[in-house]
């Protein structure tokens, strides 16, 4: 009970604090003395889980730390407190689009932070472009990012595309196969959803090119809760590597099923959810060696400090994939505001061309995209560590084969 109630209490407290801050700030200071930042995130509906793990806690943590430090610094050195305007998009694009219109035309906020999810970010992109706001789309994995960045020149795409992650994984597996650790057979399952399909479409040619044989390659519908049949097929396929392009319920379900049926592939890879702080608990403490999408440089002091602050503020650790990047995007925004102020065109230009110091290190976007990302991570010694790209600073060496459950 303690874990949950404490989290709930903290959540309530943080709201109280932010809203009181916003309220007092709004009352004490005349119009224009605060920076109004708006966001429409999913508090309810299917996207609420993703937003609740990756997006909302980081927004709240960032607003809290900026305001505690006296506010956002502007080019002239003055500071302005952040005032938050928040709406629930109910996980529905109709409501999301309207909320963005409201933030832009009714509340006239200075900045708009993006919602969670690829579809949601795409839905608001034309509006953000129309109103001129820069859009730092973090939680959107799409292979069409270059196209979108070109179409909406104030949009920034910071989580790569499906084929990047697929290719990173294939690199790791190919190295292990070349070293003779695993065979050339792979069993892969993917969730029937934009994300899963993007990844599998990137993975099929990459595996083929690297000389792997996909001995089991199936897609399962979103909402599947039982993986016993799927996993027993994968187990019987003779593959040394099990790869799942999955969402958290699937990632967790497959882990549990693999454990209970004693399925011990040499490589066990899952996607979203694998980098969540609750994953080791889900895996009953046997997460060691499990690979998943994303990763952080767990040895970096900036990341360690960020994890500690996040844990203290929200009561739980952040996930080791998109959370740090979300926070980094906010730091970029903060630094860009300090350099060029709140003018949208200038901000967009600065975000596009500037260099920023963030929790994930020094960030410089290429063609409005963050390309310097971690593709594959692995649980090693209780922390989720990035293992690919292997030549990137802070990468750990992958451990293959994975120890038995």
């Amino acid at each position, binding site marked *: 009970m303690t874990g949950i109630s404490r989290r709930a209490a903290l959540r309530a407290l943080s709201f109280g604090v932010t809203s009181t801050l916003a309220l007092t700030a709004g009352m004490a200071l005349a119009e224009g003395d605060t920076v109004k930042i708006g966001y429409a995130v999913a508090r309810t509906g299917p996207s609420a889980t993703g937003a609740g793990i990756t997006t909302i806690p980081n927004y709240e943590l960032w607003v809290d730390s900026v305001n505690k430090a006296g506010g956002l610094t502007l080019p002239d050195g003055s500071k302005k407190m952040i005032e938050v305007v928040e709406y629930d998009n109910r996980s529905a*694009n*109709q409501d999301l689009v*309207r909320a963005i219109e409201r933030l832009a035309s009714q509340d006239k906020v200075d900045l708009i932070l993006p919602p969670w999810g690829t579809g949601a970010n795409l839905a608001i992109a034309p509006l953000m472009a129309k109103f001129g706001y820069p859009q730092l789309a973090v939680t959107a994995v799409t292979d069409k990012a270059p196209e979108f960045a070109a179409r909406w020149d104030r949009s920034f795409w910071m989580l790569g595309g499906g084929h990047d992650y697929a290719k990173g994984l294939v690199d790791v597996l190919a190295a292990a196969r070349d070293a003779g650790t695993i065979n050339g057979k792979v069993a892969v399952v993917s969730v029937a959803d934009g994300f899963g399909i993007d990844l599998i*479409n990137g993975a099929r040619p990459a595996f083929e090119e690297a000389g792997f044989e996909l001995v089991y390659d199936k*897609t399962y519908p979103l909402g599947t809760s039982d993986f016993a049949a799927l996993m027993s097929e994968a187990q019987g396929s003779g593959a040394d590597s099990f790869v799942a392009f999955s969402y958290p319920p699937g990632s967790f379900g497959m882990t549990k099923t693999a454990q209970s049926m004693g399925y011990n592939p040499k490589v066990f890879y899952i996607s979203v959810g694998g980098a969540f702080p609750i994953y080791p608990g889900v895996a009953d403490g046997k997460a060691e060696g499990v690979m998943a999408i994303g990763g952080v440089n767990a040895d970096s002091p900036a990341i360690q400090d960020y994890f500690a602050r996040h844990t203290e503020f929200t009561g739980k650790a952040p996930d080791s994939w998109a959370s740090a990047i979300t926070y980094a995007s906010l730091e970029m925004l903060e630094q860009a505001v300090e350099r060029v102020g709140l003018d949208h065109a200038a901000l967009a230009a600065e975000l596009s061309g500037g260099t920023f110091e963030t929790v994930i290190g020094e960030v410089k976007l290429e063609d409005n995209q963050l390309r310097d990302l971690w593709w594959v991570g692995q649980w090693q010694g209780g922390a989720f560590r990035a293992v690919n790209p292997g030549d990137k600073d802070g990468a750990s060496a992958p451990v293959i084969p994975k120890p038995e459950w």
Partner: protein
Amino acid sequence: MIRILLPLIGLALLTVLPNYISDYGLGLLIGAATYVTLASAWALFSGQTHYISLATVAFYGTGAYTVAVLNEALPYPAVLACAALIGGAMALVVGLSTLRLQGVYFVIFSFGLAELTRQLITWYEVNVTGTLGRYIFLDITTRQIYWQMLALGAATLALTAWINRSRLGLALRVIGDDETVAAHSGINLARTKLIAFVLSAMILTLAGAITSPRYVYVEPAIVFNPTVSFLTVIMALLGGANRLWGPALGAVPLFLAFEYLSSNFPDTYPIFLGLLFIGVVFLVPNGLLAKLETLTARKAPQTKEART
């Protein structure tokens, strides 16, 4: 005369309204117009017959998907026509096989239909076309979407008004009262229900098609959101599903209430929403219009006597 004139004046005012409001105001208008259309179209079939359909989103989503698939291949008006035809064809097939189901069986069937449609489209996209998300890049402004939706909503109300006066409307009412009686009085049950169901489905599909350019990105999980079906039912019933203006009267305040709640109480909004529903069921069981009538009747019993 006034019963025709007033709505026309209202329609004219609504048409020019976008010139005087902000983008958000326009967004609200689109949302309200969409739900008025959905609820009225739903009531066109379900209001008279008492067949509670939860398949609204099956048609609405199909409309959005049709636009997503065809928007680069065909000119926009042709896409809309295709959407309406596909929705109608789907309703015909479904209706032919299912309209003999009654009561809760129909409710659940229609719910299952929405899910089945979503699963089949997903499976088809994944296994046949190999993509799942689709993009809609159409040069249609928000105002144009609003005007289209307004026109569709007005057409739906006009159609309902016409049906209510026609033989079809009478037949539907008799069916709603008692199917056995209806059959005995020579009404072709299957045909009557089918016509209303197909008309209603075509409007729902068109509504989905018209709003879809606003999302840019279409994916089954996004367009087949079951909440749309539920909200439509609640709105129509709140206003009074068997009256011409009932669904519209339910849709507008509920839509605004949701908007207010989700922006002012993002955290506790579902709780308020739940209480609101329960409140509606207990306090205005026959719809707002009926409630209003009982209230006025109680105040002035003589006038009611005189009127009837």
